[in-house]
């Protein structure tokens, strides 16, 4: 099966973002103030402090990265579409 691209990314692609705490580089997209997508890669997973020190089981997410994304959105570095 071919892996197809998400039609939504054609209009507004993922944007690069660096975590302000550890410098892990990820890709981020916000479809609204409430919605956030994050694409990690192996480098980012190896760099992220919270990821590296997490126990076994599901890693719910990195709080520092989350804060970095919020701040980037508030500062206008990550685009947030206007809601109608």
């Amino acid at each position: 099966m071919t892996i197809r691209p998400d039609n939504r990314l054609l209009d507004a692609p993922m944007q690069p973002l660096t975590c302000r705490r550890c410098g892990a580089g990820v890709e981020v997209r916000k479809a609204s103030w409430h919605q956030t997508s994050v694409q990690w890669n192996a480098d980012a997973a190896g760099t992220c402090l919270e990821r590296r020190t997490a126990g076994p089981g599901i890693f719910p997410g990195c709080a520092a990265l989350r804060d970095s994304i919020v701040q980037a959105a508030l500062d206008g570095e990550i685009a947030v579409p206007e809601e109608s």
Partner: protein
Amino acid sequence: MTAVEAGNDDIRRIEAEALPTRFARGWHCLGLSEKFKDGEPHTVNAFGQKLVVFQSGDGRINVLDAYCRHMGGDLSQGTIKGDEIACPFHDWRWGGDGRCKKIPYSRRVPLRARTAAWTTMDQDGLLFVWNDPEGNPPPPEVTIPRIEGATRDDWTDWVWTETIVNTNCREVVDNVVDMAHFFYVHYSFPTYFKNIFEGHVATQIMKGTGRQDTRPPAKDGEPRLLGNDSAASYHGPSFMIDDLTYHYDTMDINSVLINAHYPIDATSFVLHSGIIVQRTDKLSGPAADEMARKMSSFILKGFDQDVQIWKNKARIDNPLLCEEDGPVYQLRRWYEQFYVDVADVRPEMVERFEFELDTTRPVEAWKKEVEENLARKAAELSASTGRPA
């Protein structure tokens, strides 16, 4: 409110490639292991084949290709004799390792008397079978995690259901990301929703409140449902464990829900649901069993609603998504890892992806903070330049 975008008048075509010709690599649950421990061989149609499941004298549950390599007899119609399954046609005896051990009327077993055997795992009251088109053994890191409550006295026994569904099993996996369908199909209202795909695990975390418009208000004295917390993960292509807690005004109810399937062939699968509920001071004895049964029938209702949709819908490889939809394409990219050889699993199929929807903070609060930020920056700018911004 929906803004309709004008511009492109071409008709959107639904696209669907041919169904996959192989079955997913991974652990698949065949149901309660108890069912297979009755001294009889069982027929299971799975992975496009007929299988025989039988418990040998040593207690192990074995899974073999059902057709005897001698003259094609159906072993699942045969008899268990000691550690072997005996063919009903000529009594050839097959061991759980897939080798013919004995032919009662012959002095020796011919060379090449070996049939396909599947690796099995009997864990937490459930029988699992490992499917791998490449024929490799299951790597330990993709094993199904233990379900603590399944073997504990303060939890109920499994309430288990099995349903045959006549469509390709990708449809059921798609549900992991389908936020909107919870509202329309399952009458639940998520306030927080998160998907995480990483390695062989796909997770859905959800916090929700019941829709007030679809359920009768609690009567006096009855506990009132406030909301629920759910953390559900597919461990591989087919077995989902959901830690689900219902919050009432007077108590919490902890449960574990299983949503699992195995493919019969490319156009049908067996859908399983299982549930156990924790017994507490407020939910003890038969009340907990009754709760488990109630939740099971509630889940079945949800499945029925899904099945109605699946029965009639088209397979679609190019769903047209709006911003409020979940990460369908990213989920399918994750799911694809189970349909290619291990050597062909690409980083993008297993690298971590997160999709989060958090509605607990109102948009007004975000907008206010942005305005404050802008005002502060303007003030800083004017202070540093000595001019009003």
